[in-house]
């Protein structure tokens, strides 16, 4: 376990530490090491929670809870190399558990949570396309949505995504294929229109 030599968790030692080192230190209740784990993974975990929660505001709470689960019982994670996938799986399970308890909210929320970064779409059409796509993805079954999120939005390899979902690669590929097919069906009506709008803006 590497000691923290700096005054903050951003000390170079922790920044360069491996996940295994960070987890070992976190297991010894080292907050600086754990803060670095959060620094590394809170964004992807949040994105997965958000995608599964279909833009519901609880995504932040779910993300926090996933990290707290790790902090309270780091022994749950058997392999440090699987940390990112483990956190994502915990977050997705939490979202699904919560929505089993209460009915899914309508995705109008998604339109309110639009990326405010400078690279974000600035025209109304693009915002509408984003909202329409979010809604279509939200309409997919949970497992398909999760597979699509891992592979398409988080750019995980099929092997890593399958490991994170605790399924075989074949099963993951099947989920992905069904998700894409489902999306094509859902977007059959207005997909052409959206594509035309994108092409127009490109010119």
């Amino acid at each position, binding site marked *: 376990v590497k000691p923290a030599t700096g005054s903050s968790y951003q000390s170079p030692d922790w920044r360069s530490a491996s996940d295994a080192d960070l987890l070992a230190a976190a297991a010894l209740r080292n907050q600086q090491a754990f803060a670095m784990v959060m620094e590394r993974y809170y964004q992807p975990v949040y994105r997965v929670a958000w995608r599964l929660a279909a*833009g519901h505001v609880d995504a932040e709470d779910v993300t926090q809870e996933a990290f707290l689960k790790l902090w309270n019982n780091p022994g749950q994670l058997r392999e440090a190399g699987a940390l990112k996938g483990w956190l994502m799986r915990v977050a997705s399970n939490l979202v699904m558990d919560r929505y089993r308890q209460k009915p899914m909210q309508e995705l109008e929320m998604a339109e309110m949570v639009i990326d405010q970064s400078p690279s974000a779409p600035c025209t109304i059409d693009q915002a509408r396309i984003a909202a329409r796509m979010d809604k279509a993805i939200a309409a997919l079954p949970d497992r398909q949505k999760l597979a699509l999120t891992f592979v398409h939005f988080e750019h995980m390899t099929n092997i890593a995504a399958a490991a994170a979902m605790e399924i075989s690669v074949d099963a993951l590929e099947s989920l992905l294929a069904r998700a894409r097919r489902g*999306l094509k069906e859902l977007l059959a009506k207005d997909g052409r229109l959206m594509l035309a709008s994108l092409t127009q803006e490109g010119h």
Partner: protein
Amino acid sequence: MNDHELDQLLAKATHPQPQSGFHNRLLQRLEEQQGNKVIAFPVKKQKAAWLIGLPLAASLVLGLWLGASGRLTNIIPLTTSEVASVDTSTTGFEDVLTIIEDELT
């Protein structure tokens, strides 16, 4: 719609970003939870000691009184009437001479 077109549309889906201060809120919650993990010793309600002692003392006195009343009177005569009831037959030391005389005659 082909796969390429679908990928084009998927690329336009929202890329959510955590709201600012998310990391700090997460750290704060971690610290709060750590604080909650420290379980304080429960403060015991102080009962007046005499409330417990009183029934104990009363039962002790009652027990002594009930237990001893039948026995002490047998050991230590408490009244003159009991003294008067002492055996008066001729089996005591003072009667030895009378008994010898009777046997001689």
